[in-house]
């Protein structure tokens, strides 16, 4: 039975049931090559990582079974807990702020016609496509003690606020986070603009006829219409927030003190610096689980209700 026959079957649903069932089983054969690739390069490494997490291993010499000790260490060491806490703070900067900014831009756009929209959109999307190392180096300069932020503060007579923003215990985490906001809001905006263009303009007309103001219109029409896009944006940015490493590594290396250490840093350090592969694997498993739980909650929470 070929696919074509099956398509014919679909167009003729009154055909015999067996005719439909047999080719369906055969169809799974088409999935085998893809599945094998997926299993070899995704599932197998995941299984291996989970397996390694029960060992003490330097990556080279013999592994030593230590049961749940890596997990125990992960959940009892105050430092690792703080580090996962930083991961959650990053969600605010990498996911929630960009989504809010994206929504604000869309809300304005649905009321005001913006000239040169394409250029505007491209420029705001740009941070998303720049290499993160370039972004990090640029922001290091912006945040530096003799950088432009402090220069502006001096000009405004607020010299008392100046500091090395990435090197200050009080501002480092937020400063790193805001880089993430800058990178991600363009993505959210582009997703939302695309989504808003699909919303039936009649809905806006109806809302306006009913006397809705900008806020009501946004809440009643735009926001519900963007539910799917918000869900996608959150999944992408939350994942991005939790596995964030390159920006931190290239701006603060986790400092000052331990203020900007994030979970991915723990994994990197265990796997490549301290050669504590088992601990790095355990941290990876916990991080993966955390990402899965959060993205699943987002998907379920924002599922379209038909």
């Amino acid at each position, binding site marked *: 039975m070929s696919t074509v026959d099956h398509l014919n079957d679909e167009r003729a649903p009154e055909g015999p049931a067996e005719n439909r069932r047999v080719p369906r089983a055969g169809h799974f054969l088409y999935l085998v090559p893809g599945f094998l690739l997926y299993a070899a390069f995704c599932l197998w490494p995941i299984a291996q990582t989970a397996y390694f997490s029960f060992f*003490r291993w*330097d*990556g*080279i*010499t013999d592994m*030593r079974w230590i049961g749940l000790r890596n997990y125990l260490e992960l959940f009892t060491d105050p430092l690792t807990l703080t580090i996962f806490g930083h991961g959650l703070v990053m969600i605010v900067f990498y996911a929630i702020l960009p989504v809010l900014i994206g929504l604000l831009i869309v809300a304005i756009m649905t009321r005001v016609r913006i000239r040169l929209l394409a250029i505007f959109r491209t420029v705001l999307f740009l941070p998303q496509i720049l290499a993160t190392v370039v972004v990090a180096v640029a922001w*290091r300069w912006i*945040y*530096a*003690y*003799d950088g432009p932020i402090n220069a502006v503060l001096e000009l405004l007579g607020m010299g008392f606020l100046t*500091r*090395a*923003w*990435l*090197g*200050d*215990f009080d501002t480092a985490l937020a400063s790193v986070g805001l880089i993430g906001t800058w990178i991600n809001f363009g993505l959210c905006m582009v997703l939302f603009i695309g989504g808003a263009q699909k919303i039936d303009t009649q809905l806006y007309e109806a809302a306006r006829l009913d006397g809705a103001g900008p806020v009501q219109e946004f809440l009643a029409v735009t926001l519900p219409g963007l539910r799917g896009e918000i869900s996608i944006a959150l999944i992408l940015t939350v994942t991005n927030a939790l596995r964030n490493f390159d920006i931190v590594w290239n*701006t*603060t*290396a*986790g*400092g*000052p*003190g*331990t203020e900007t250490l994030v979970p991915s840093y723990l994994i990197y*350090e265990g796997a*490549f*610096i*301290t*050669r*504590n592969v088992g601990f790095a694997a355990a941290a990876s498993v916990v991080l993966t689980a955390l990402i899965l739980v959060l993205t699943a909650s987002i998907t379920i929470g924002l599922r379209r209700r038909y």
Partner: protein
Amino acid sequence: MRGTLSVLLAATALSAAMPAIAQDTEITEPVSVDDVAALGDVTLRVWADAGEETMLEKLIPQFEETYPNVTVDLTLKGWGDLMGTVVNAMNSSTPPDVTNGNQGFAIMGTMVRADLVRPLDDFIDAYDIDEGLPASGFSSMQWNDEGTAWGEGDTYAMGGATQPLGLFYNKSKLEELGLEAPDSIGDLNEALAAAEEAGEQPIMLGNSEQYPLGSHVLGILIDMYSGVDEINGWIAGQEGATFDTEGVRQALETLESWGEAGYFGRGYDGMSMDDAVASYGEGEGVFFLGGSFNGARLAAVDPDAFGFTLLRGESGDYVTTGTFGTPWLVSSKTEIEPAALAFLGMMLSEDFAQAYADVSRLPNKGLDSVTPTGSMHEDQLAAAERLFEEGDFVGYLDWATPTMQRTMGTQAQMLLAGRTDVDSFIEAVQSDWEAYQAERAEQ
């Protein structure tokens, strides 16, 4: 009885044969061109830190000309990248024949433990590598067979150009301030106060990578107030060693007071070390505490504007953290061992020393015979010579445990920000150390 004897004899024969099996290619004299030619046309795989690039650019053509049957395949990596990948590369079926590594348990220890590297004692003897060099510089490259303790045992590595930590000073600024170049920690403390009073920034520091405050700056201070053996013993993980010593306390209190006095200026935690060296080169700051490896950059700006000196500690001796340079290791799996040894032999020879000196480095061989690039380089060569003759090397504090670099870097930032005190600093470091010693005992 006879049975016991024959077993004993067999055991003796076996133990006599063992080293021969492990190192059946032990050399007694330098590898000859013919030895290498006998390999036929081969490729020598070399992995190196990017800092070695200029040296290798000179070495490789010279090597390929002397040994025309060998082609060198060079892989250069940044330091972090190299450290993250070199152990796995050495463990692969096609490892580099010659590579840069690093001291300490995580890199060299793992390689020794997994039998990935060849002991180099025979090579060092055959090429007279250790002639005129202080034995204390070799201890960080000597390991027991299990790769669990260093300080004695076979020597597995050697560097080409020594890298002592020390004090750079801006000559014209010292002159303006009416100060002599400091020779001891006491002199330095006075000079710092005078610089501060005159409205200069006493010390240039860029520490955004949590480095070099907790490693170089603190390392130098600890050297000043501690006994060499005391600190080296602690770094090597000797039983009963502690970080809670009078010397360490004094060093931390000094660091803290430097911070309180504002000697490092503002914003140092937001500036990278490279940027700080660049600013220092442009004339900001009176002193810079760092390694001789920071010198090349300064010499490139002006070979005569800066000076370099080691400091005498409280003991009156020159004591400083340092090494013979980024260590080179030879793979135990190399199939072209003569070529690998010839490559290192040429790199570490006195004939090649000028190539290091041309980029303001300090070749272990030939400190007194090379032509310096300027007066700062001359200072550095003289300092290294003095160290080789009468001083002692202390290890880097971060060799103590795989996590020590971060612990020290973190704690040092916190100390200067007033987020921790000397007691908690010592406690944090010592508990990192103890946790690792416990783990080492389990291995």
